[in-house]
């Protein structure tokens, strides 16, 4: 796909612009996120949780898909965000939007502190340190029973209405609008980040860690920035979860949550911007539907789904689709 009109002088800027341009499919995707209001109004609560999971997966994609750093402990940031938002609301400030901002700032700070550890190590040790930190934070939250409620969860989170008008209702209408808007705005920011020079240097790190210093890139500080950004958005997802369910459980910080979000991302396809979104939707819907059909043994079907995807669609659903389209195209031409 050459963006140049034949005969015109080559314009490199146009080539780069063609890559970041909004595509029709993207617009359709986001318009489709509004469909549940009309098509499945009874599923809005699930939809809002999908939106939250999608944002969480997107924040992880920045690390896994774009920078090539695997984290199996991303729930640390989700949990910190959830507890900050939850505690703020519990202790008298239930305004949602400022709560979100507060939580993401707190999480970004935590992410900044943790990033000093992260940039020192690589590979398997790094993955295990992320696991370790996740477990460590879980234990801290558990032992601070008086503050966090420990295993009983943080109770008494009371959210005010958004703008003093829209109450979080039982049907999840407000919750879905709220999480969808937050996720979409975050997506815009993340999309911009990925399409920025900084985003290009992230992809450079993913592609070749050895070359980067040789073209003058200070890897560590670049990595620290991406850790902070990723943490910030994961925290935002956590805060959204705390606010819409008005409850925070220890589970927010669990290894399971970390593993789950990674599964969603790989399922959808890492490093593809929409991979996390699609993976989250697929995973959550599949889990919901399978668990309804077969509450005791649905694990089996979910496991089978993962195995099938990996065997037949390596690189996730979007990766598999892209490969398929490539194959069809090359056959035609």
């Amino acid at each position, binding site marked *: 796909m050459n963006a140049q009109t034949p005969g015109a002088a080559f314009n490199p800027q146009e080539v780069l612009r063609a890559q970041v341009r909004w595509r029709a499919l993207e617009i359709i995707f986001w318009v489709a996120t509004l469909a549940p209001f*009309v*098509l*499945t*109004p*009874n*599923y*809005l*609560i*699930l939809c809002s*949780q999908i939106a939250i999971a999608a944002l969480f997966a997107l924040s992880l994609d920045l690390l896994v898909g774009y920078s090539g750093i695997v984290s199996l402990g991303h729930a640390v940031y989700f949990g910190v965000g959830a507890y900050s938002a939850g505690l703020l609301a519990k202790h008298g400030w239930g305004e949602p939007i400022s709560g979100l901002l507060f939580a993401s700032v707190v999480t970004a700070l935590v992410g900044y502190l943790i990033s000093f550890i992260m940039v020192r190590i690589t590979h398997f040790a790094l993955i295990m340190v992320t696991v370790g930190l996740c477990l460590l934070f879980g234990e801290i939250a*558990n032992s601070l*029973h008086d503050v966090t409620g*420990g*295993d*009983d*969860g943080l*109770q008494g989170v009371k959210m005010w209405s958004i703008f003093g008008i829209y109450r979080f209702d*039982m*049907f*999840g209408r407000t919750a879905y609008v709220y999480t969808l808007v937050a996720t979409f705005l975050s997506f815009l920011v993340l999309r911009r980040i990925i399409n920025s020079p900084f985003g290009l240097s992230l992809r450079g790190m993913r592609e070749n860690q050895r070359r980067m210093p040789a073209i003058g890139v200070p890897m560590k500080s670049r990595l620290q920035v991406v850790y902070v950004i990723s943490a910030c958005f994961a925290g935002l997802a956590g805060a959204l*979860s705390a606010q819409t*369910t*008005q*409850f*925070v*459980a*220890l*589970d927010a910080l*669990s290894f*399971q*949550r970390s593993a*789950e979000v990674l599964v969603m991302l790989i399922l959808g396809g890492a490093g593809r911007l929409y991979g996390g979104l699609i993976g989250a939707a697929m995973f959550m819907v599949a*889990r919901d539907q399978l*668990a*309804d059909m077969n*509450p*005791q043994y*649905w*694990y089996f079907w979910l496991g089978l789904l993962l195995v099938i995807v990996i065997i037949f669609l390596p690189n996730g659903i979007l990766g598999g689709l892209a490969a398929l389209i490539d194959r069809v195209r090359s056959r035609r031409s």
Partner: protein
Amino acid sequence: MKKVFAGIGGMATAMLLGLAPAQAQDTIKIGLIMSFSGQFADLGTMMDAGVKLYMKEHGDTIAGKKIEIIRKDSGAAGTAPDVAKRLAQELIVRDKVDIIAGFSLTPDALAAADVFTESKKVAVIMNAATAIITARSPYFARTSIPLPAAMGALGTWAAKTGGAKKTFTMVTNYGPGIDSEIAFQTAFKAAGGEVIGGVRFPVANPDFSAFAQQLKDSKADSVYIFVPGGEQPAALGKALAEHGVTPKTVKIFSSGELVNDEPLKSMGDAALGIISGWSYSWTHKSDTNAKFVKGINEMLNGRNPDQFAVSGYDGMQLIYKALEKTKGNADGDTLIAAMKGLAWESPRGPVSIDPETRDIVQNIYLRRVDTVNGKPQVVEFDKLDAVKDPVKLQLKADGKLNPDGTAK
């Protein structure tokens, strides 16, 4: 283009109509939220067996209405109360259920409390055992066991009759564990005993030897234990036996889970002499229970029922009896009103729903592990009749209980 939009619009309308079926007047939908998978899957298995058995015995119609059950798994992500809350919301919004029942764990029930208050739907709690739960929503009714009631009775007995002077408490560090620790300690001290130490261990804890050693080093003459279901009772029991802590050396008082069938089998003779205070054991002698045990045996390949099964059974019983009274009206206010004061003969003995607190009133049995037919088994030797939850009695005495049974 216009056609496409028209098509989408038509589809949307069709789906809207399809998804919101006119509520059939002759069906009552009951949503069951239980941990069918995960760490506490067996709790769900047992509770559900109780539910199924009751429906098998009593049919699936009541007051001319068909009962339809929708099962939801809250155990998927381990202990995830936000999932339980979402499931409750979805059952009400999406599946249009009339009644919700189940709730394996305290956090699940607490997280979902507001949903019932807001939607005015009745929820029957079949396990979650922390005292305060029923005070969190006026639509909660409970058929399991308010822990402090049983543990308080056990504490008093331990100090007065059981011969314990200095005790050590070991509980799991979450709501029910802390509840029962406080209840036991308070009652034990009030009856003249001394609490010389205690430990709270995490919900996920693979090895108990450090805690067994602590108990041993405390030189206590007795110990009180609370652990939830799952792998903990057997693991803890074995760690104690391994460190030479058996009822022969240290008097062991516990809640019911420690002496359920599986841990008893694993502990073997080391369990002989453990005293527990609880509302149900399958060894309870009554005709109702004999029939119930037989039913569960058939359903679960010979496994004996435990507290979870009987709570599930009685939960269904409560719903059926209340619906009978309201002639099939499942409206929240009507139904909860009908539940208040209901009394029936359960496999565990006579039970009723306290009209003030909507919590269960039942006998608490004191039991000892003895050898029966060559195997260790729980044997009842004493009971306290019609025990109410002391925590809520205290709230009431302090004037902190609303007329609808919620806490101020």
